[in-house]
């Protein structure tokens, strides 16, 4: 009897350490953001969203990079595990994209008086969100997981390759406007704010890693469960 996808049971061991580290890190980060940093001079308390908004955005785009890697890996080797990586990256990147698109307006309205502006970065994030959704839709509609994996890999590659071009195009589209949403560059942050930001970055990466890890294993187990069920039905 051949397993459709080998599930490395030993790798499951890593879940608890990763979870503990992420939870602890997040607790520290939340503590820093709400208790440690001072209010921003101009925008007030709402500026604290920045500490989650920006890392979420960075992590989302990193997820796209992983999606590209997983898609190419799957098309090259046809090993299902690459596809599971691609699927996990798609879903997790979509999640973080959603966080960016929700926290953005929540920050913008009190801070600058407008819910939305078609600024380059936020527009690119919105389009990325749509592209990722497209990948998931193709998977869902496909006649089998295998076909879905193949087609989603292609859409994934096209989308990932597109992200930079979209960004460039949206930057040119808006001309040389000063960018409303750009967080202050590193030099502009007070030292305490810098600490908080530099803590949030790795914590978000940890969260990202944890979610990818869980989703990846879930995908492996889903495959396995389907195999067991089908075999049972056959007999």
């Amino acid at each position, binding site marked *: 009897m051949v397993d*459709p996808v080998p599930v490395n049971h030993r790798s499951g061991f890593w879940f608890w350490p990763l979870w503990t580290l992420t939870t602890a890190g997040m607790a520290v980060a939340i503590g820093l953001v709400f208790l440690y940093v001072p209010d921003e001079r101009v925008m007030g308390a709402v500026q604290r969203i920045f500490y989650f908004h920006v890392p979420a955005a960075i992590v989302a785009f990193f997820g796209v990079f992983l999606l590209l890697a997983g898609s190419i890996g799957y098309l090259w080797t046809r090993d299902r595990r690459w596809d599971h990586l691609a699927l996990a990256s798609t879903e997790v990147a979509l999640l973080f994209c959603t966080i960016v698109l929700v926290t953005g307006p929540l920050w913008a309205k009190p801070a600058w008086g407008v819910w939305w502006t078609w600024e380059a970065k936020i527009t690119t994030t919105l389009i990325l969100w749509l592209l990722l959704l497209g990948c998931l839709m193709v998977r869902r509609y496909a006649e*089998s*997981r*295998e076909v879905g994996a193949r087609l989603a890999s292609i859409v994934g590659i096209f989308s990932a390759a597109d992200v930079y071009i979209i960004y460039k195009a949206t930057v040119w589209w808006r001309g040389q406007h000063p960018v409303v949403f750009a967080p202050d560059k590193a030099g502009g942050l007070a030292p305490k704010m810098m600490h908080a930001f530099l803590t949030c970055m790795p914590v978000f990466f940890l969260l990202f890693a944890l979610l990818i890890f869980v989703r990846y294993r879930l995908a492996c187990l889903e*495959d396995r469960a*389907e*195999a*067991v*069920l*089908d*075999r049972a039905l*056959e007999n």
Partner: protein
Amino acid sequence: MEREPPANAIRARGLTRQFASRRAVDGIDLDVPRGQALALFGPNGAGKSTLIQLLTLQLRPTRGSFTIDGLEPRRDGVALRRRLGVLSHQSFLYDDLTAAENLEFFARLYGVDDPRSRCRELLDLVDLGNRGDDRVGSFSRGMQQRVALARALVHDPAILFLDEPFTGLDPDASRKLCATLNRLRGDARTLLLVSHDLAQGIELSDRWIILRSGRIAADGVSAETDAASFESVYFDSLRRARA
């Protein structure tokens, strides 16, 4: 000391196709010598169509290998496809083109010399010489299957795969198709026929095999098989395979 086996038209070893979790074709070994007509029987889901799709390079096998006329699919895919003709229960024809236009298109696609006269020749072969300029969409199902057969033969393939070609044909059309196929058998062409019609399958083949759950459950020589009692043989072998 073993002699080199003669080059078979079709030779498969351990051919397997997995669909996520279901094994549609499970470790099939097959040897079909040149010029033989093989009939494939089996219940729905037995893997007959999947086997044909594997052998015609429409699907990639998960495991195992096969050669056609000694050619390997991965290495010699193009040359291999040149040797195959496929007739399916789908007609593979464009409704809004005429029969002649359809055939000419595929003839040119296959690089056939003098496509026009080849198409006329084929239309005559399938008894549609006077309907060449009519839209295929206006044809009856039986006539469409005949054009489809002509299409399958347009490049004079050495091996012909027929996947349930009698589906949806009335008795007269069925008989005509049968007659045409019998004529083809004389050309030293290799035939692989999937059919639900047991009697017709026996009549048109030299050998037969029964597939069940992706494996060969039984096989036999058609000449030695009584068409009338074949039905009980068929159900017997299925029952045995299930055990």
